[in-house]
């Protein structure tokens, strides 16, 4: 924990040490050449929870998701997912248990929506029994059923996000990583995404979600961490949030933690 504002409580993770952890990160360090993007980052995400990761642009959220999903290597520290340490030996076992929606979403542009879903599910060895029905039902729920036989590269950005989300759900993960899943998605679909996420949580799936829409994070997540300059500067669990949010909204808490400099005077000339 570094550079906390003097009037903000130092909120630590020990409050949930007794719970099983879906993700444990210990002193993680990630660099892009000489630039340190994540510094000694430690974090634990309780199993079966919806965990929010918020932070300003460039804080390192997407990089952290990239590292956790095995796309990016890291220089120091250790990561455990579902009790398995992220090592080359365990890589495939871990990958079998996770799914993700990245920003921008990763889709196969030359496939139709349905071909894409079928392809991914086949790789994850998901049973074909009832798969198409499930896929259609989820696509229907997110109003993209009509695009089932349309090429992915013809879809709008919102539909692309929804398709990536539907696919990530269909591979039956234990841990889901969602990087800004609500961006470009309409309000109704955001509500429906929240519904699906809550149902998954009820089934024991752990969800780690990053977003800039703080109202959604506030409303959806159990615990929230604030990432700033590659550091977790606050971990707000249910108890601490209740305490802090007596007087202020998550938006105000966020501003205080990241010490937002009010620069309105810079644009006085406008």
């Amino acid at each position, binding site marked *: 924990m570094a550079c906390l504002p003097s009037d903000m409580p130092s909120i630590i993770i020990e409050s949930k040490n007794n719970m099983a952890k879906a993700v444990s990160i210990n002193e993680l360090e990630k660099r*892009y050449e000489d630039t340190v993007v994540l510094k000694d980052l430690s974090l634990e995400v309780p199993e079966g929870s919806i965990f929010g990761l918020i932070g300003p642009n460039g804080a390192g959220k997407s990089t952290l998701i*990239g590292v956790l*999903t*095995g*796309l*990016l*290597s890291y220089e120091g520290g250790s990561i455990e997912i579902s009790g398995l340490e992220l090592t080359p030996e365990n890589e*495939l*076992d871990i*990958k*079998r248990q*996770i*799914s*993700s929606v*990245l920003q*921008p979403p*990763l*889709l*196969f*542009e*030359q*496939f*139709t929506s349905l*071909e894409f879903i079928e*392809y*991914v599910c*086949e*790789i*994850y060895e998901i049973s074909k029994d009832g798969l198409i029905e499930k896929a259609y039902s989820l696509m229907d729920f997110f109003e993209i059923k009509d695009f089932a*036989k*349309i*090429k992915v590269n*013809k879809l709008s950005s919102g539909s692309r996000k929804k398709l990536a989300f539907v696919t990530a759900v269909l591979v039956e993960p234990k841990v889901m990583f969602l990087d800004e899943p609500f961006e470009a998605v309409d309000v109704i679909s955001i509500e429906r995404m929240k519904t699906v996420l809550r149902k998954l949580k009820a089934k024991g799936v752990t969800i780690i979600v990053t977003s800039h829409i703080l109202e959604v994070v506030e409303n959806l997540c159990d615990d929230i961490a604030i990432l700033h300059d590659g550091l977790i500067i606050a971990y707000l669990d249910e108890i601490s949030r209740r305490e802090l949010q007596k007087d202020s909204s998550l938006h105000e808490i966020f501003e205080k933690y990241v010490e937002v400099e009010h620069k309105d005077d810079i644009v006085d000339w406008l």
Partner: protein
Amino acid sequence: MMMIGYIMFLGVMLVNLIGTAIVVVLMDTDPWMATQLPWLTPKVYSFILLVFANTYWVMHFSFTNLRLLNIEENRKLLGFGFPLKRLARYMIIISFCHPVNIIYNFTWLVFLMIQIDFWYQIPVAILGVILNYVLIYSIKHRFLQIIERRFIAVVVGFVILVFSLFQLVQMVSTENVRLLYRIVPRIETINAFLGWMPGGLLTKAANLDYGLVNASIYAALMAILIGLIIVDHFNKTCDGLHRPALKKVEEVSSQLWKVLQRILGNNAGKYYYYVMIHPYNKLQLLTLAIIPIVYVPLLLNVNYEIAQTIAIPTILAGIPVALLAMGMANMYGYENRELLLHLQFPVKLEKQLKERFLGVIILPLLVFYLITILEIVFIPQIGRPLNIFVGNTFMFLCFMLLFIWSSYYQYQKAVYSSFSYKHPIISQKVTFAISFTIFTVGYMVFVPLNGLEWYRITIMSVVIGIIGIYLWGHMDVLVNLFKKRILIRIWSDL
């Protein structure tokens, strides 16, 4: 370096075109030519002049470049408040300023101006060149839209056209004297016909004495036509900028993907599907189909034995190599960020890369064996079976190694751009190097050495063995190369 190379290419092109034009125009004025070419009567001279002008017009039509009229990209400027009409005007002007367009139009001016006898032919010829350009530009703009819609018909038509054209050239080259004697009695009719073709009309603008009054009428008519075409094009450009074409959203079902998935599996099948449906590669395949159809029969009829023993095997060995280049030289450029999703799959990266690698060599390998067998069976005069087989294998493996390295060091997004200079699928460095090296290696591999042949066979066999062992044992290195060189680029390549 690339810019210097491009400028050199343009310079060579300009000098060649203008040089040829000057030689054609001045060939009957040199007394030495008259002694060397006694058959060069005024009628034959006109015939040559008209053939040149019309051939040049076909070239001009083919190479008029519209790339700078990039409506999709330029439309964004409207979002910043750039005035529509001004933007359309700039785009028309900047398209004209493409170096290739300038070279062709400038050569026309040189070609016509050295034929001028009267001052009033000058404005007519200049207006003729401008009218020609705006007409080509306008026709081509519409023609491109037809190509997009009727790709297969255009491709087949083009193959037939090129094949007939080359067979004609071959006929002319082997029986030129007999043909000339046949043509000469009818040359006036042919000249009259060629005179009414676009190149002929332009030539007439410079070398026909039509008088001052007629010249004024022609000039006025052409000026009006130029104005009308430019206004039409201006309106079309404004329209295109203002109203983006709707993306066709229609249901599709690809049998090709299903077939490839069944034959090659999920990984290699998907990769090969992407390679095969890329529009650039369709054009590439077309080029590869035309080369042997046109050149091999042509070379088989040539009387120089050495040309057959070197050029034919080189061209044929180059075909699987070109196919290999198509799929392998920028192997990760087709999928780009999609590869990140592949990396998240619970399948080892090494397995995925190996499958892609094997998938991409299947077709070139089949073509390689087919060509080698056909060469041995049908054109035994080009060499002994062992020489051909070892030579072909040597070329194939050498280039495979080059392409593997290229796919790691020359990665770039493979966006649609047929033969684009700026955004090709395979970078210019690699394309130039490949074309140059195919012929260089071809000459080294296939030039007849008679009694010393076994030295070359031995050396090539050893190199084949070394490359084979290297490829077999270095897949891990390639995985690491992928992680170090490609992964970080596709991560940040939004």
